[in-house]
């Protein structure tokens, strides 16, 4: 087997795995705080890509794509706040008895709504913003400039996320809420406000992935489906609720898919992740970094 080809596959797996881990991080962060799964995560990825395209095509022009990225994330963050306030907050204020079912129904309804809204507003065709950068090389790997930019931006976002969660007051509060929602309230912290922030940040991370990958993976109503699928695979592998698990799971999935492609066949690429997922579930059902929930 050609070592250059193997290294190219592994590197391409690392790159895409890291970018997908943004999605996984969004899913796991929301779950960690709100204890709910957002099944409509792919639609926030899709909205991020549409917002990026719309900003570049109408307001900013192709050269200022870097300015469009925070704006697209910001727009989806605000949308996330509104959705959390109007649709998800009732889960936590005593109105809803079956929280899990409520969250599932609301987020799946959101998924259908946003997907159809995209078809109505933007039509069913695909769009693509101009390239963020010219094709380049990452060691032996010839890589799209857009994906290289996406990789750098992902690393920056992951670092920022880590710094905020670890070293700021809001980060400490969020970690506290993740550990014990009742306990954090006894310290006088408004956990409902934390929920809003967590949901907004989670969906903004998905939007960032959508905006970053828009030139390569295109903008169309169903473009979030695959990244959501990968995001869920990653959190099951890495462990639901674990931030480190999202990153490690993303890397593992990317590399495994790459190695499977080179040693078996690239035609079954999506299957390899499933094999890993099943293995992890058999050996360690909580995922690599997940912990068994303890209740008293």
């Amino acid at each position, binding site marked *: 087997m*050609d070592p*250059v*080809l193997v290294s*190219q*596959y592994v590197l*391409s797996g690392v790159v*895409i795995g890291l970018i997908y881990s943004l999605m996984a991080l969004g899913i796991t962060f929301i779950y960690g705080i709100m204890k709910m799964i957002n099944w409509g995560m792919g639609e926030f990825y899709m909205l991020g890509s549409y917002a990026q395209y719309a900003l570049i095509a109408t307001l900013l022009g192709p050269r200022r794509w870097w300015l469009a990225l925070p704006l697209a994330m910001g727009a989806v963050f605000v949308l996330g706040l509104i959705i959390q306030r109007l649709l998800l907050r009732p889960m936590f204020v005593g109105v809803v008895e079956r929280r899990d079912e409520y969250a599932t129904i609301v987020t799946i309804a959101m998924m259908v709504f946003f997907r159809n809204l995209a*078809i109505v507003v933007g*039509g*069913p*065709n*695909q*769009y*693509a913003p*101009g*390239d963020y950068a010219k*094709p380049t090389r990452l060691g032996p790997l*010839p*890589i*799209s*400039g*857009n*994906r290289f930019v996406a990789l750098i931006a992902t690393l920056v976002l992951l670092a920022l996320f880590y710094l905020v969660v670890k070293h700021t007051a809001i980060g400490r509060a969020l970690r506290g809420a993740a550990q014990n929602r009742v306990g954090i309230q006894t310290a006088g912290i408004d956990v409902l406000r934390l929920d809003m922030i967590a949901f907004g940040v989670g969906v903004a991370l998905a939007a960032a992935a959508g905006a970053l*990958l828009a*030139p*390569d*993976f*295109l903008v*169309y*109503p*169903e*473009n979030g*489906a*695959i*990244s959501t699928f990968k995001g869920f695979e990653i959190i099951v592998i890495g462990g639901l609720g674990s931030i480190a698990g999202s990153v490690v799971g993303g890397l593992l999935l990317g590399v495994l*898919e*790459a190695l499977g*492609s*080179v040693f078996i066949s*690239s*035609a079954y*690429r*999506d299957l390899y992740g499933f094999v890993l997922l099943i293995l992890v579930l058999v050996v360690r059902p909580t995922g690599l970094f997940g912990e068994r929930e303890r209740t008293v």
Partner: protein
Amino acid sequence: MNRRLWICLVMLTLVAAGFAGHASAQKPIKIGVLTPLSPPGDAGAGQLIVRGAKMAVEEINGRGGVLGGRKVEAVIEDDGGTPEKGVAGLRKLASQDQVVAVVGQFHSSVMTAVQQVAEQFKVPVFATQASAREITERHLNYTFRTHVIDADRVTIWNRWIKERGFKRVAMTAENTDYGVGLVEETKKQFKTMDVKAELKTVMFDRTAVDLTPQLLEIKNWKPDLFINGGIGTPVYLTLKQAYDIGVSPATPMLITYDAPVRPEYWKTVGEKGNWVTFFAYYHPTMKLPPRGEAFRKRYMAEFKEEPVYAALNSYAQVEVIADALNMAKSDRIDDLVKALLSGKFEGWNGTITFPRGEGPYWQQWSPPMLMIQYTKVEQAFGESKIVAPAEFKTGDWVRPPQ
């Protein structure tokens, strides 16, 4: 008294029957348009197909309708490019809307599912741009096609591969009836046509968005021709990602259908779309018969762009159905099918007939197949050259810059 009552009843019945007959005479004749209008289907194609069908309906009604004054109505249904949505759509069109025929089928995988249901409901279904060989090879009574067959298309490009002397041909294709059929047919004909080139084929899942592993495999195999067998979004994803990792333009790319003639092509792929060679069935420089030429003029006046084959073909299919209804002098589906099988109809590019031939040439009419090349970024379709086959050639194929 009793006698008077009976007379009244008989008269009332006759009047009611008269009204019913009159209402039936005025009832519009419905033609279904079952086509992809949302992803993962090729929604761009679906929109063009709807455009053509609607223009035909307007034209037919402008002429006074069919069967001595009955209006025609198009019932649009989205198949989403998936067999399950297609089957549900066909059921609805046949049972609820009671259409006399269905046009608009684009994806082979949808058509192969839909045609079985059409057979059960006894409703003629037309493949507008679905090209899998098996569609007409099954010899079903209610399946008609006015589009090319994969096998014929493969023959044309294999001939071109031999002429150009390519030695290493790589091909990616999606794991659908279309993609699998294309790969199998190419492999088969490489042997039967004695093509002296190596062939490497790589399949990918239709929903995949990152095709880097497949394209890296292709790149490292060092082909001198790359056949992009995607349909809809995957054709664009392959094109862009192949350029980014350096497969194209140095390795010439052949696209297996006419996606590059669509208005969104250059917007989506930009400079990466240059130098591609692609299959098409219509070119603006072609001389068309009166029906095709009239459609072209109307289309250009209405949409300010050249018509695209998908619209031309759906337009022609609806016109053929209207002509067949008039020929049959009946709206009964059996009579319509008999008329379709026995008649000669004016299409957009010549006379359409549906003979029951051997193999896939069953109730099949094929348009011309052209290989076209873009040699400039944002090149207008009308300025592009037909590079093969020889009988239609308007320019020489140009090797892309290395």
